[in-house]
């Protein structure tokens, strides 16, 4: 990995109307390699603008991330405003347009220089390059729990601090007093000695001519006045009165609507339909034959959908027409066995020698776990509105990756990327799904056939059956316990590996480890799903830890503690969850507690689930969640994300199952792809450990822990060990006798 060789600096300017703008520019330094292609001229390239001090002393913060309910449109401006000592009441937020000028330099910098790797959701989607600085700069992605960790830390805070520094210097010059005598507060600068006070806006012209400090001093957490508080989110008022505009709400002059049906067997081609097939359908305008789908354009969505339902839509035969879920699992097992036999498995972690240990071991435990495919099922079904003209294309969509969408649309329309304009809207749920541009590509191809804008809406059935799925997986474990109840060797094999890299790794001090995986061929499309690989590996590793604790005859909390020999942050989080959940206190008959611990996206989480089995019905009463995300910038928002992630993970653990039948997804809507509802929703308590450690993510890290906390609790209550999700497929029976 190369060092960041170009010099980045902060730049300013004044816009007409007297607004000071502050952004980040990059000065060509080392022009080697791919980087030089990015920087066309010899001059400085302004990559983005982060803030504007307006003439009326209000401040506009420009945020390069999409709002999908995670609160980023509020938290990022907070980070900037605090460093600037701005008046929070006058802060406005503007989402940056999907444009290269606003691409996310901070992410690139985070990747190259930061303490953490950029999650892979942030790469590989724009064009050919992969994991290069050049590439990162042309990204503007919301995902991987990255907004605060990278954009916030590298861009927002620095821009705010730099703005404060130049305004202070300008005031010092203007008033001919030492900068040290000035006080900055609530968007004003005052000089107490001479009793003078003036708004920031009085100094913007002078400030814009000053050179910027390359590394402005950032506040310590004790100095924060806005960061670490929970002001109301900017986006909420529009979400209680129906005025928030989601992608599906876009209205354009002369717009028509399209419904679509794609091949249920992924990859199969659609048989083209004659244009005349709709001639007797009033209000229905056109059939568009795409390679793998048929779309119908009509005056309204319902008309389009009704027409589509009556058309004889057929698809070609495909090699996958007979593939079922068990074939996929059989293939996994075969590939895992073959990889083992041939010794060509992909190595993930190799420590010590498990072979030597297993040779002599007397207490060897093995287990195999399975998880099914999962769909995202965002509340807002996939949709996109497109208008294709001769010289370009405009799309209106809620996207986690507007630049990636622009690039994909440009490619299928054979246009330059600059000719595609993305108008990003609120996202009715993202969870990773809205980083895939499939619906935008379809909308553009449909709109290309007509001279008016078309809003393409997927039915819920399309949404469930044409997703990019969290994969089904199998994870096999073999471990040995010594006579002190310690794990001597840990062998783990699974299929596929994506992101985050550490998902299958354990925080426990085990000297001999071999963690490895193999790839397997499948025709089911894969996609980022909230917490990605951690959504399954926490279930695998933390279930197995529980099984080992049982075999060692040690309390599962104590067993984890005993193995956290060199992980003080993990230990603190685990202890907090145990303490708050009254771990060890007696429960009524048929109740159980389960504990789990997992780090993802820089945040360590431990959870305790408290459940009851009433006859054959499971009731999840309470979930205690302890988290160490380093510093928390918006505690109420962080709590909301923890709650959200737990409900999302619990939904999957209890009900989530996408299964493949005859090459296609069997489930189709909420009646057979069930969601957790209010009556089943447990009481959730979140406890945060805050520190000056590098901030971790908020959107994803609470999802992984809930499945193992739940199934470990079921074991505690009933002795039934669930090794395959979802729980709904298992017959539960309260029977504490099994545990002796």
């Amino acid at each position, binding site marked *: 990995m190369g060092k960041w060789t170009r010099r980045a600096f902060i730049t300013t300017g004044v816009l007409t109307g007297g607004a000071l703008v502050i952004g980040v520019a990059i000065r060509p330094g080392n022009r080697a390699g791919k980087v030089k292609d990015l920087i066309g001229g010899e001059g400085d390239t302004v990559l983005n603008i982060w803030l504007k001090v307006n003439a009326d002393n209000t401040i506009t913060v420009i945020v390069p991330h999409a709002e*999908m*309910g*995670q*609160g980023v449109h509020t938290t990022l401006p907070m980070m900037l405003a605090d460093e600037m000592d701005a008046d929070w009441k006058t802060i406005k937020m503007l989402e940056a347009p999907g444009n290269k000028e606003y691409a996310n330099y901070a992410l690139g910098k985070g990747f190259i220089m930061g303490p953490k790797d950029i999650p892979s959701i942030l790469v590989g989607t724009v064009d050919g390059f992969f994991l290069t600085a050049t590439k990162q700069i042309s990204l503007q992605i919301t995902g991987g729990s990255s907004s605060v960790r990278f954009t916030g830390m590298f861009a927002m805070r620095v821009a705010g601090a730099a703005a404060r520094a130049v305004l202070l210097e300008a005031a010092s010059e203007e008033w001919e007093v030492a900068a040290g005598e000035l006080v900055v507060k609530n968007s004003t600068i005052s000089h107490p000695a001479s009793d003078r006070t003036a708004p920031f806006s009085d100094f913007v012209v002078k400030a814009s001519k000053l050179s910027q400090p390359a590394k402005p001093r950032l506040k310590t957490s004790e100095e924060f006045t806005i960061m670490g508080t929970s002001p*109301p*989110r900017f*986006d*909420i*008022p*529009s*979400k*209680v*009165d*129906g*005025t*928030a*505009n*989601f992608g*599906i*709400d876009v*209205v354009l002059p002369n717009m028509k*609507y399209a419904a679509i049906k794609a091949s249920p067997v992924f990859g199969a081609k659609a048989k083209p339909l004659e244009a005349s097939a709709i001639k007797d359908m009033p209000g229905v305008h056109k059939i568009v034959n795409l390679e793998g789908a048929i779309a119908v354009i009509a005056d*309204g*969505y*319902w008309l389009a959908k009704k027409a589509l339902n009556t058309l004889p839509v057929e698809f070609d035969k495909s090699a996958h027409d007979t593939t079922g879920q068990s074939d996929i699992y059989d293939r996994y097992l075969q590939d895992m066995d073959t990889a083992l036999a041939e010794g060509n498995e992909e190595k993930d972690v190799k420590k010590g020698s498990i072979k030597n240990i297993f040779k002599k071991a007397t207490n060897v435990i093995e287990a195999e776990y399975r998880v099914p495919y999962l769909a995202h*099922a*965002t*509340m*807002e*079904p996939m949709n996109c509105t497109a208008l294709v003209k001769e010289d370009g294309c405009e799309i209106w969509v809620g996207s986690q990756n507007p630049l990636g969408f622009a690039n994909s649309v440009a490619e299928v329309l054979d246009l330059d990327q600059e000719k595609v304009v993305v108008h990003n809207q*609120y*996202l*009715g*749920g*993202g*969870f990773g799904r809205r980083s895939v541009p499939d619906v935008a590509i379809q909308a553009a191809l449909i709109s290309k056939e007509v001279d008016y804008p078309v809003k393409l*809406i997927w*039915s*819920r059935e399309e949404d469930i059956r044409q997703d990019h799925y969290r994969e089904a997986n199998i994870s096999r474990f073999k471990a040995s316990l010594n006579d002190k109840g310690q794990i001597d060797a840990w062998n783990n094999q699974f299929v596929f590996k994506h992101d985050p890299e550490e998902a299958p790794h354990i925080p426990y001090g085990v000297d001999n480890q071999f963690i490895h995986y193999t790839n397997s061929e499948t025709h089911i499309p894969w996609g980022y799903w909230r917490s990605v690989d951690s959504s399954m590996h926490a279930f695998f590793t933390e279930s197995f830890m529980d099984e080992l604790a049982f075999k060692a005859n040690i309390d599962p909390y104590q067993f984890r503690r005993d193995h956290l020999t060199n992980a003080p942050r993990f230990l603190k989080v685990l202890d907090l969850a145990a303490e708050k959940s009254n771990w060890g206190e007696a429960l009524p008959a048929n109740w159980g507690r389960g504990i789990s611990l997992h780090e993802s996206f820089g945040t360590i989480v431990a959870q305790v689930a408290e459940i009851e089995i009433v006859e054959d019905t499971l009731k999840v009463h309470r979930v205690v969640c302890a988290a160490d995300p380093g510093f928390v910038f918006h505690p*109420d928002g962080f709590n*909301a994300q923890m*709650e*959200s*992630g*737990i*409900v*999302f993970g619990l*939904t999957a653990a209890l009900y989530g199952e996408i299964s493949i039948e005859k090459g296609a997804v069997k489930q189709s*809507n*909420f*009646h057979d792809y069930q*969601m*957790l*509802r*209010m*009556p089943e*929703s447990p*009481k*959730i308590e979140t406890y945060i450990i805050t520190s000056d450690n590098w901030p971790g993510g908020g959107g994803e890290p609470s999802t992984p822990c809930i499945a193992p906390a739940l199934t470990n609790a079921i074991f505690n209550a009933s002795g039934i060990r669930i090794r395959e999700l979802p729980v709904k497929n298992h017959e539960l029976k309260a029977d504490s006798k099994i545990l002796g």
Partner: protein
Amino acid sequence: MKLNINNTIHDVDLDPATPLLWVIREQVGLTGTKFGCGIGQCGACTVQLDGLAIRSCLTPIQAATDKEITTIEGISDQDSGLHALQKAWIEEQVPQCGYCQSGQILSAHSLLTQNTSPTDEDIDQAMSGNICRCGTYSRIKSGIKLAAEELRNTATTKILNNG
């Protein structure tokens, strides 16, 4: 065909079987009511017919012609601005992505019209038809309780003032 939506009469010339949802969104242009599943399973399309919460994705317009239709755009109080539920939703910072919240608020509104002091079980029951994929259920519940209290206080004040 005439539809009375939020006390405004709209003339529509459409197939009487057309679901109310699409007429509200596309013909009338009130986009606060959302499409979620099309089979009455998720509640995103919830509106009220004569004060009762219904799923507009399954309700043909012919079944709504002689009724008062209320959508999220129609529940604010003309005198005091936002409805108590909307204020409570802001106070409790309920929405995340926000897509399901119009439907949640309309279901809650229907509940509070019939039951001014709902218990947790009443709320569970009334809200079980509305899915929130962001999992904001506990905040929705708090919001309903807060709004119920506010409405009860307002009602008491009115009685006292009138008495």
